[in-house]
């Protein structure tokens, strides 16, 4: 069914509105058919919940509802990510406005019985705030300080149904762009909004569009960069899984503004669910005439093709990505020429990140002024962070720019796991740095993060507590860059390897104070002489930890100890006088280095100790300590 014009789109929207009528309505729970319309169970189908068997839960729910004869009154739908991954699998019931957390297939019978037959809330599946022990059915503290623009439809609509997207104002921005705006006014609007690239660099999106649209060219291309390689970031994946049409719509808008007829989505092959939903979305958009020729009756033609990445972090860099789409090794090339001048197959190409695209339709519909009223002076709008690590509420969080780390980690994230002490937050992935406690109240935007030695990156935010060794974290990131350096520039190829070697030396207790100078000197050289962002930012994890956690490096080098108790070579195990001589530890020691007679305190031979910790785990009296 091709949509011939805007009227057809609006008619379809009017018809589809019923699909969403039940949602986001605050309504006290009454009887099953209170409204005479089917109620909706939205089962989270995001990555985390999907991995915890949410499709099984959905299947069981359908079967149970069927058996109880309720299948015409209650519909089960799979959505995109709710963001609250910590408590997954999650499901929400509309219009009752009830959110159940930590659901398993075993709970299905109870949900149907109590919620739908008896008409009362299943108290044990409600979220309980660990501090106040208050139960929440809706309006969870996790969502309080959030503003969802890029994630607006994730968890709200069923991503595999284009009519739901259309009912939620989908493709209205496209219609506005095609019939009420000129390409230059679209670009002007995006420029005015202050939207900057969400992939890491923070380049103004409108300027990028303007540059790509300039000059004479027979062909131009739009590329959506969905090669989310930053370990610990999964917002692009969640947007593609939860709201794929918003990205397609934004690519169409970009295409019409720039004068491109062809788009590519470059996505990691490791994201099968995102690819699956994206393919469904593309097929549906083609079926409704929203991709292809003469879109909505205009003379605009545009089509989109999916290209798979093959596991190379450097392909997130736009020139490397373009080479990869061309079927070559994903090595970056010198800029200029910029892709906006000579990109894919030598033609002007605009490369934007998934999250950047997801912001476009709301900007067009609600206007640049609205968007630029959110955020800080230089960074407008919101940013999605993948909050993970030692924090209570792991998940996807979207907050206005300028929100502080403290608000994100403590108010939204619920603080540090197991009441431990906050030590650092890592942003920007392997290109970023570790931010210490003293900057917890810094409002976050592109500039402020750079000024404190980190960067926005794609939005990974890893929280660390006092049991994380910062030298080891720096080593972890360097291991990553050594693996992922494409090998083109010597400084990056050889330099990162040398940095990694020095860090390994330090974590093994063999470091010297000269090593710290070598780290700093080498880091600066690599930053100055690498071609692309990967090399230029690879030393950041070292430089920031050296600046803020120098005493930890010194402890490793001078005292030969690891304050966090992580670096194995520096650990020492000792048996205290709490030992009852039960001999359990001697039986479990793989090195046979514990000696002592029954009922007498035992001793560990430190020279032969492998530092595996097996004795400490097995001891029933807490007599073995690590220091």
């Amino acid at each position, binding site marked *: 069914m091709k949509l011939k014009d805007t009227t057809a789109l609006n008619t379809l929207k009017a018809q589809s509105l019923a699909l969403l009528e039940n949602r986001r309505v605050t309504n006290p729970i009454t009887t099953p058919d209170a409204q005479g319309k089917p109620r909706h169970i939205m089962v989270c189908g995001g990555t985390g919940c999907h991995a*915890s068997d949410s499709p099984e839960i959905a299947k069981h729910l359908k079967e149970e509802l069927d058996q109880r004869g309720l299948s015409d009154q209650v519909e089960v739908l799979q959505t995109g990510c709710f963001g609250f991954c910590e408590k997954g699998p999650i499901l929400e019931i509309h219009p009752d406005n009830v959110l159940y957390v930590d659901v398993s297939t075993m709970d299905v019978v109870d949900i149907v019985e109590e919620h739908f037959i008896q008409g009362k809330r299943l108290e044990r599946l409600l979220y309980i705030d660990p501090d106040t022990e208050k139960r929440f059915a809706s309006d969870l503290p996790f969502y309080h300080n959030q503003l969802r623009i890029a994630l607006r439809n994730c968890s709200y609509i069923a991503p595999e149904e284009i009519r739901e997207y259309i009912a939620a104002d989908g493709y209205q921005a496209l219609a506005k762009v095609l019939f009420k705006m000129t390409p230059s006014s679209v670009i002007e609007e995006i420029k005015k909004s202050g939207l900057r690239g969400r992939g890491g660099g923070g380049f103004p999106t409108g300027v990028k569009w303007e540059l790509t649209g300039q000059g004479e060219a027979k062909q131009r291309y739009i590329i959506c960069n969905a090669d989310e390689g930053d*370990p*610990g970031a999964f917002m692009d994946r969640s947007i593609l899984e939860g709201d794929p049409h918003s990205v397609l719509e934004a690519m169409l808008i970009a295409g019409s503004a720039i004068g491109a007829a062809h788009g590519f989505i470059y996505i990691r092959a*490791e994201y099968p669910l995102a690819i699956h939903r994206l393919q469904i979305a593309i097929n549906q958009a083609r079926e409704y005439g929203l991709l292809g020729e003469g879109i909505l009756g205009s003379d605009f033609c545009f089509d989109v093709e999916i290209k798979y990445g093959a596991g190379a*972090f450097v392909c997130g860099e736009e020139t490397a990505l373009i080479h990869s789409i061309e079927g070559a090794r994903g090595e970056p090339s010198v800029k200029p020429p910029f892709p906006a001048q000579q990109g894919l197959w030598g033609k002007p190409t605009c490369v934007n990140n998934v999250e950047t695209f997801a912001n476009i339709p709301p900007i067009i519909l609600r206007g640049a002024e609205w968007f630029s009223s959110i955020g800080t002076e230089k960074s407008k709008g919101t940013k999605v962070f993948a909050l993970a690590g030692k924090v209570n509420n792991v998940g996807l969080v979207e907050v206005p720019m300028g929100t502080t780390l403290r608000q994100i980690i403590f108010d939204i994230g619920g603080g540090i796991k197991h009441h431990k002490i906050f030590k650092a937050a890592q942003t920007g992935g392997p290109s970023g740095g570790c931010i210490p406690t003293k900057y917890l109240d810094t409002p976050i935007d592109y500039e402020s993060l750079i000024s404190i030695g980190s960067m926005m990156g794609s939005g990974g935010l*890893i929280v660390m507590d006092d049991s994380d060794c910062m030298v080891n974290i720096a080593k972890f990131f360097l291991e990553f860059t050594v693996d992922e350096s494409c090998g083109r520039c010597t400084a990056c190829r050889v330099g990162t390897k040398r940095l990694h070697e020095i860090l390994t030396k330090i974590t093994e207790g063999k470091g010297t104070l000269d090593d710290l100078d070598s780290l700093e000197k080498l880091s600066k050289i690599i930053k100055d002489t690498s071609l692309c962002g990967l090399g230029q930012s690879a030393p950041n994890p070292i430089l920031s930890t050296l600046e803020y956690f120098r005493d930890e490096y010194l402890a490793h080098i001078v005292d030969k100890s690891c304050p966090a108790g992580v670096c194995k070579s520096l650990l020492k195990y000792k048996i205290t006088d709490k030992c009852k001589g039960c001999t359990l530890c001697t039986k479990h020691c793989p090195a046979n280095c514990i000696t002592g007679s029954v009922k007498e305190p035992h001793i560990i031979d430190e020279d032969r100790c492998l530092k595996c910790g097996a004795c400490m785990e097995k001891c029933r009296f807490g007599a073995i300590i690590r220091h």
Partner: protein
Amino acid sequence: MYNNPLIKDPYQQLDDYIDGLPYKKENLITILHHAQELFGYLPDKVQWHIAQKLDIPSAKVYGVVSFYSFFTMKPRGQHVANVCMGTACFVRGSEKLQQEIESQLGIKTGQTTEDQLFSLDSVRCIGACGLAPVMTVDGKVHGRLDNAEDVKQALAKYRPETMREA
């Protein structure tokens, strides 16, 4: 396994696939993805075949195959286990998890067990940070693997004896 007359020769399948593509050389990576699906891995012979078919130097094919970590030139076990080495999993103990799996399977990361049942690899963030530390086996995510018993149970699901029972 390809002697079965009902199964089409994989080289023929690959050729058919390539013939159906509008662009050939530009789709090298797509073709390699498809070839790896058909053969399970990309040995020299397959790379050579693709180079001939596309009329490009086999060095170029090798260059691409060796560049991307998704492609493998060694045969894989029946089940491929990947330990997530993303930062979120790392700070929640993925190094320990990796060692535990290595010791339970008796192989190192990057190797395949002697009975060809498991291959072990690592992967960078699969986006299931809420379940950290995680491992995937054949794409299925197993999360919150905090101790040896959790790992044992997750791996057992893929052993033929338990699969038969199931």
